[in-house]
């Protein structure tokens, strides 16, 4: 069974980035190398606009499962964009051991 809608088949190798919560996405970013983050970004970023077009044609609170998983992947792309576009490291610079937990986030 494909993870994502058929148009996004080339993102299947990155299905493990399709994560439902911020804490999972953040943890995956921190445990990835810059090469892994770059590879994910290079595959997903060029498809972001297409993904938005696909998702916007659907009801946000009634997304089919494959669309929900694509949306989760987009959340991960947002999270991974920081290291790739600016910092060149998975963790925000000068943040040491500081951490912040997400207590409440939107259901979708």
């Amino acid at each position, binding site marked *: 069974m494909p993870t994502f809608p058929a148009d996004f088949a080339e993102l299947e190798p990155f299905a493990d980035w399709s994560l439902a919560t911020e804490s999972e996405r953040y943890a995956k970013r921190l445990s990835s190398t810059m090469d892994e983050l770059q590879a994910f970004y290079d595959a997903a970023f060029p498809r972001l606009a297409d993904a938005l077009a696909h998702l916007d044609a659907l009801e*946000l609170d009634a997304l089919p499962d494959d669309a929900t998983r694509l949306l989760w992947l987009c959340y991960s792309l947002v999270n991974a964009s920081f290291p790739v576009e600016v910092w060149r490291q998975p963790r925000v610079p000068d943040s040491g051991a500081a951490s912040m937990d997400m207590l409440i986030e939107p259901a979708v």
Partner: protein
Amino acid sequence: MAHFAKPDAGSWTEHYPELGTAPVSYEDSISPEHYELERKAIFARTWLNVGRVEQIPRTGSYFTREIHAAGTSVVVVRGRDGEIHAFHNICRHRGNKLVWNDYPGEETKGTCRQFTCKYHGWRYSTEGELTFVQQESEFFDLDKEDYGLAAVQVETWEGFIFVNLNPDNTTSVHDYLGELGAGLAGYPFDEMTQVYKYRANVGSNWKLFIDAFAEFYHAPVLHAKQATAEESRKLSGVGFEALAYALDGPHGMVSSWGGMSPPKDLNMVKPIEQVLHSGLFGPWDRPDIEGIDTLPPALNPARHKAWGVDSFVLFPNFMLLVWAPGWYLTYHYWPTSYNSHVFEGTLYFVPPKNATERLRQELTAVTFKEYALQDGNTLEATQTMLESRAVTEFPLNDQEILLRHLHKTARDYVAEYQTTTPVRISAVS
């Protein structure tokens, strides 16, 4: 070079002469004794924001809030009468914590018809009356009327729920929040119900994190690595100047410009921001609701075109940030000791209509976290070095006026408490 006009006194700080301009002692942030006084003088006596009305939409909806600084836990509930009630979270039988789940020290929320004590099963209505006593006939002259939950003063302002733990308090929250509060009335907070809430344990005095969010003097420097290299160079060359400051009783606010929402030039921002049209200041497109174009008087007081965000420091531990593109953010700082506190940052947006809007909000929420991690990480280091007392006085500049005011206010509350509370004569003289 000054970009924005200052008051006739020559500076924001001198506009409020009671503040003085001298270097400031941070003893109030490193002294365990001072913190013990703050607990009694401030946290046990002022209005504390504990949440929003949307958290308890229905009859029986409740949440608990641990208030370590005041040495209590409160339960806030919407009663059958439709009103919001608050009680000390303690059973009248033998003092068990009434409302908790698995871990008595952790906050909880839910919906119930009544509160039942886990220990011996006493029950209380959502209005706080004792309604059931297990084996009531075993007690001696027990009148259930006498054993309702201990009520806490609770009031709402613009949908924000406040409690006051001083039973003798006679000031309404509306009056407490003064002109700044009144000047925010009518902002459509109630439309912004899409919530992201973060929490962090921070190893510093509670006031130090307010300091970090009450000035933007640090922003072009501490956060330099967040922006594109060219933009970052420009920002630190310009530095930071506020559009306006206002002080009102114990409260204060800073009004800031924010040219990034949207940016003048797309190349100023990161590729993800270019595609999503969003960033730290929020989604560039404003939500389609009433009340964000015509602002109440306390917002953007300079009525400046470049306005980006107003930050209100509502004493003691509540900050409210209203952003030009139509969303808001709250900060709470809950002390747990003189050198530690729990920080909460909560973002509120108008619910997104589609995935694009949802992703724009996600980008803002994630960006907020990355900035806050940098802000938070400096605090433990500051706390440790302040505690060394190697240096005891610190110069604060005009863009740090809210810090000067915050620490003075906290010291004034303690001093006022000390003069009005009779000192117990110590046994050894």
